[in-house]
């Protein structure tokens, strides 16, 4: 599962088609800070999730793939051509950067039209209408972008990214600021595009965002590619790891003594305020804790995971 320096396909299976994005031993450092450290990977048509905590180097890696930054070492290719200094490629690539800034004085429609014009689309009306309709913002298209909510701005940025119908999409945290309904629409849209044979790379620092969408996952931690492959395999690995759960009850001692007898509990630590349980089967623990409290007549005041952060999840995967 871990990827040291070998080429990862990102699929877990032998590829049947040529890679659309290929990164070969790429590193990028800024002064003494190493943002991307000797990463090699290939990305194929379909949806690939680039997952990692904030500061893992996802954005820098995407910039290198899009030719926006010069690798300190190594080589990034897009559609079989060098990504850097190759402006013709941008006609086939759509990039949505992480920052959410826009030209606030543009209306939504002007913004998408601006993008279409710079892509040389002619005629552009149909493409602009289609892109705006695809993100469901026709009603708001004549309002200035500065009046948009964060989620709307993200969607209109997506429309501007899609207007020239690119073969490859690199989307950096595209779901920031979107609500659950918009998220579902976004997922459906991405699936449609992927079904048309496009290559879509979506980054996120939230596991669940990518889980629903991507069939292949690249995990990045501290500038390195920590794991790559089929989502289910990674998810199972994550489920195997022991979780720390903090439980606060009316009677810590009695509850602690009962918890240690459960199969799903590996260890119990009790202090004055709370019980800290280490469990390899957190799903079973979720069911048994309330049942146990009820049986013993102990008030359950609080149950919270202690290390749900992605950093701890990733450090587990990297450590394997």
């Amino acid at each position, binding site marked *: 599962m871990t990827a040291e320096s070998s080429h990862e396909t990102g699929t877990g299976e032998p590829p049947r088609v040529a890679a659309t994005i290929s990164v070969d031993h790429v590193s990028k450092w800024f002064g003494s800070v190493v943002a991307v450290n000797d990463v090699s990977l290939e990305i194929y048509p379909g949806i690939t999730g680039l997952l990692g905590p904030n500061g893992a180097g996802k954005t820098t890696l995407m*910039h290198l793939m899009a030719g*926006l930054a010069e690798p300190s070492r190594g080589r990034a290719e897009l559609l079989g051509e060098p990504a850097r200094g190759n*402006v013709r490629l*941008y006609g086939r690539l759509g990039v949505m950067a992480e920052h959410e800034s826009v030209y606030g004085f543009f209306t939504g429609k002007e913004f998408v039209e601006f*993008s279409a014009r710079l892509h*040389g689309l002619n005629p552009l009306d149909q493409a602009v209408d289609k892109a705006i309709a695809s993100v469901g913002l026709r009603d708001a298209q004549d309002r200035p972008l500065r009046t948009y909510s964060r989620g709307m701005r993200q969607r209109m940025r997506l429309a501007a990214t899609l207007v020239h119908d690119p073969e490859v999409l690199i989307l950096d945290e595209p779901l920031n600021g979107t609500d659950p309904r918009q998220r579902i629409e976004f997922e459906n849209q991405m699936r449609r595009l992927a079904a048309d044979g496009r290559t879509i790379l979506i980054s996120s620092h939230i596991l669940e965002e990518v889980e629903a969408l991507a069939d292949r996952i690249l995990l990045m931690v501290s500038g390195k590619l920590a794991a790559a492959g089929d989502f289910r395999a990674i998810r199972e690995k994550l489920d195997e790891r022991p979780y720390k759960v903090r439980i606060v009850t009316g009677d810590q001692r009695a509850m602690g003594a009962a918890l240690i007898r459960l199969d799903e509990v590996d260890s119990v630590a009790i202090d004055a305020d709370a019980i800290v349980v280490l469990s390899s089967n957190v799903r079973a623990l979720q069911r048994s804790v309330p049942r146990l409290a009820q049986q013993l007549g102990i008030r359950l005041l609080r149950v919270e995971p202690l290390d749900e952060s992605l950093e701890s999840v990733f450090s587990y995967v990297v450590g394997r």
Partner: protein
Amino acid sequence: MRPLLGLSLRQLLGRRRLLLLLLLSALPVAVAGIIAGFAEEADSEGFVNGLLDGMIVGAILPIVTMALATSAFGDEIEDRTLSYLVLKPLPRWRIVVPKLMASIIVSGPLIIAGGVGATVIAFEAGVQPALAVAAALAVGVIAYASIFTWAGLVTTRALGFALVYVILWEGVIGSFLTGIRYLSVRGYALGILHGLDDESFEAVAERAIELPAAVGGAAAVTLAFALLTVRRLRRMDVP
């Protein structure tokens, strides 16, 4: 290039600082009005040295152009919108040229109107000196815009760079090293001013370089910095 020119003009015209620059550009006209009102007879030498060279060419021309041209790319970098422009299948010069043109289109009329207005009022000038002032300032705007557009892309402290260039290079060093005139936009502007009307602007004769050298120098500087800007845009890491 039209959509990019349109965008750049909207960016430059939409900022509050434009009002400040408008007032600054109108300042020489006000000063000229005061001089004309109080002076008993026209002091052409005083006007040329003090107001035209000292204030308009030496200060207002670089300051107004600097404020607008450094922000042509500087604002895109600061607002993190530059990637919208560079991620397009356009040769980089087609991004640089409209940015440069927008800076010239916005700052040119302000500076030229102020300069020509002041000349006409204080100098009781005819058509020829007015045209000479307009041409000198136009060339100055174009050359400065090219230098400062580059500076805005190269450093986030472009205004600081621009001030050091104008004050140190053109002001202090240029005042005792005469050769600097051939490598300074102020030198080019004075050369054109004197070259087009040596009679009216006799006062700057000692500081003015030859007309062909002024025109050629300004063209070379403009082209060189435009090319440097294109090169920078190609090679930089876009935030």
